């Protein structure tokens, strides 16, 4: 009997030893300060931007230690987070991308934040953030994730490339005069193409595609239904993009080789427009003549401003955290005005909170930096209906790439796309 127990004991020990050492969230490190685990994605350079904040936070809160658990690739981040949530070993606080937030919200693994954000210990109230960028992080009026920063999608333009193509009008000036129309933009692209350059470079993501659809006056989602393939104006936008990609007026940044990528093309004045966020400044600083470049929002049919896409990510609180108070302290300070001023000072993002605008405007670059803020204030994060289905945005992008590259004809591609989305929506 004793021997049997010994063998069972060994089995148990071996099983425990083999089952990994998954840490539960919010575990205190003895009698000293508690440790709040948090996670995000990003390169080593991105992660370095958090050092100052961490230093500052730990000085002000000697009872809390922050432990960052980063994942280098965005594509690998959510699978890991899902596995951690399923096994109850997820960090106390974590980033969630705008294409995944909806699923985590509906799965009920995030702490509702309305009361906490409105409470006395909050450093950031719900109304401090722009309504449009809550996207899928808000459901039935309840906030489940706070936008930690944003990146509004704008059109960077190269004054030299435009001049080389015989374009004399300045897009930013046209925008200020209320004459920045889709027709003008497409005409400029045609002239750039005729001059042997690319008109525009787009990344194949919802930010560019849906901004173009909005610019044409079309709808992507309406009443919970995906209408981009049936709404006449949205369809016209997708057709214009398809035509542009196929006659090389538009280039897909995804298809350019790393060694001769979109930034290189733009720096070499081989394209007139490059759709991107504030992060493009970093690329331009690496080898561009900064004065050659400026920004303009995506055009509209009438020339009046229209809502543009805003890339966002959210900071969420694990529902299973054992240290909800300390975890919330970190969350609210991270997304607060002061937190964003520290974090984003040297970064390429735009604050998501009201009152931290000086980060974007202080350097006076680009000349129309205010455009970032205008797009952020009126723009939209990915549609809640879309982000509620994991992988749907990626599938739509992947399918559209087949259309852009001519692997599927436009009409057939639209039919297949509608079928794909309907199938995913169930």
């Amino acid at each position, binding site marked *: 009997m004793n021997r049997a127990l010994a063998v069972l004991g060994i089995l148990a020990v071996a099983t425990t030893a083999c089952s990994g050492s998954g840490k539960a969230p919010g575990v205190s490190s003895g009698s000293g300060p508690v440790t709040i685990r948090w996670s995000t994605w990003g390169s080593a350079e991105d992660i370095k931007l958090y050092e100052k904040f961490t230093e500052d936070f730990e000085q002000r809160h000697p009872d809390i230690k922050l432990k960052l658990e980063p994942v280098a690739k965005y*594509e690998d981040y959510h699978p890991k987070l899902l596995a951690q949530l399923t096994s109850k070993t997820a960090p106390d606080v974590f980033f969630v991308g705008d294409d995944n937030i909806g699923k985590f919200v509906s799965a009920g693994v995030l702490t509702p934040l309305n009361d906490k954000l409105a409470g006395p210990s909050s450093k950031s109230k719900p109304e401090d953030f722009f309504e449009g960028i809550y996207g899928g992080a808000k459901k039935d009026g309840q906030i489940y994730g706070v936008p930690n920063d944003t990146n509004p999608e704008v059109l960077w333009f190269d004054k030299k490339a435009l001049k080389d193509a015989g374009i004399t009008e300045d897009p930013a000036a046209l925008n200020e005069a209320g004459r920045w129309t889709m027709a003008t933009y497409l005409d400029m692209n045609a002239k750039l193409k005729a001059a042997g350059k690319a008109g525009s470079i787009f990344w194949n993501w919802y930010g560019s595609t849906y901004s173009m659809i909005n610019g044409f006056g079309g709808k992507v989602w309406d009443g919970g239904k995906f209408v981009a393939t049936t709404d006449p104006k949205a369809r016209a936008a997708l057709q214009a993009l398809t035509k542009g990609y196929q006659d090389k007026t538009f280039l897909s940044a995804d298809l350019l080789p790393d060694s001769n990528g979109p930034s290189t093309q733009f720096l070499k004045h081989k394209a007139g427009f490059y759709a991107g966020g504030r992060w493009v400044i970093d690329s331009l600083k690496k080898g561009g003549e900064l004065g050659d470049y400026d920004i303009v929002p995506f055009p509209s049919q009438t020339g009046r401003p229209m809502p543009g896409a805003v890339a966002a990510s959210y900071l969420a609180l694990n529902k299973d955290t054992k240290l909800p108070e300390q975890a919330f302290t970190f969350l609210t300070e991270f997304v607060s005005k002061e937190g964003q001023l520290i974090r984003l000072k040297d970064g390429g993002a735009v604050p998501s909170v009201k009152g931290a605008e000086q980060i974007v405007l202080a350097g006076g670059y680009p000349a129309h930096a205010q455009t970032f803020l205008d797009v952020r204030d009126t723009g939209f994060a990915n549609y809640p209906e879309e982000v509620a289905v994991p992988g749907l945005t*990626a599938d739509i992008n*992947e399918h559209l790439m087949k259309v852009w590259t001519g692997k599927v004809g436009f009409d057939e591609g639209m039919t297949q796309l509608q079928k794909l989305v309907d199938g995913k929506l169930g």
Partner: protein
Amino acid sequence: MTVLTRARPRAVHQARPVRNRDGWWAAFFLAPQVAALLVFLAFPLGFAVVLAFMRWDGLGQKEWAGFDNFAAQLSDPEFGLAVWNTVKLALLTVPFGLGLALLIAVALNNVKGGGFYRVLYFLPVVTSSVAVALMWQIILAGNDYGVLNASLERWFGISAPDWLGDPGWVIVAIAVVTIWSSLGLNVVIFLAGLQTIPLQIVEAARMDGADSLRIFRSITLPLLSPTIFFSTVVAVISSFQAFDQIYVLVDPEDNEGAKTIVYQVYELGFKDFQFGMSSAAALILLVLTLLVTLVQFAAQKRLVHYDS
């Protein structure tokens, strides 16, 4: 008589504890393995089988789905493409990889002091698959920036395709990398097999006037057939399970030509949060692998010679 009656029970009495002790020692040494097997194989396998009949997003409630997941996968063109890509990869890597390994093994078997070459061929096997993929990424990069294409253009004026970007060529590129990485292991296995062939048979054949080609065809190949069979089964299973190198070498999300069944399993589970569907795809892969292995075992009866 007394001696005999006393001796019998003693013998029985002595034998029992010895057997019991052996059993306990066996259990002691096997326990970690059995535990690991239960935790890492039996439980996940059983769980995956159950999940294949459920709808589950990894976080919420599980719902019974019956055979819906299987039906959805089997009628999904994406899954069909993944199966076709996997089969193409197997068709490229198994015959070419094993053929090349056999040729090298035969050559090394006849070279004195071939240890250096054995180490050389075996090096890729002990190199991390991620490091291998990153290295080949530099070699196979598209346009003039990849080492291979730049060399082909410069030395031969050949404008080569974008190996990793072109859906039509990417599987060939992956096959080349796979063959390169597994070559050393196959060479070592074949060498071991070659060294079991009795020299006197080869000598006898030579004395009878058989040339090297005839010896290879009539003696080496038949006597090596159990080794070839073993390597083929392992190689087919490995190519059906290909994932890590492909994931690093080319992100299959950007190039559908690189989507294999295991990638489809990963994508369905960890990107789309459809764990039931993902498990169904994994089970289909298991059945497919079993079928192919059964066919190989059936063919073994006619093609493999176990008598020397």
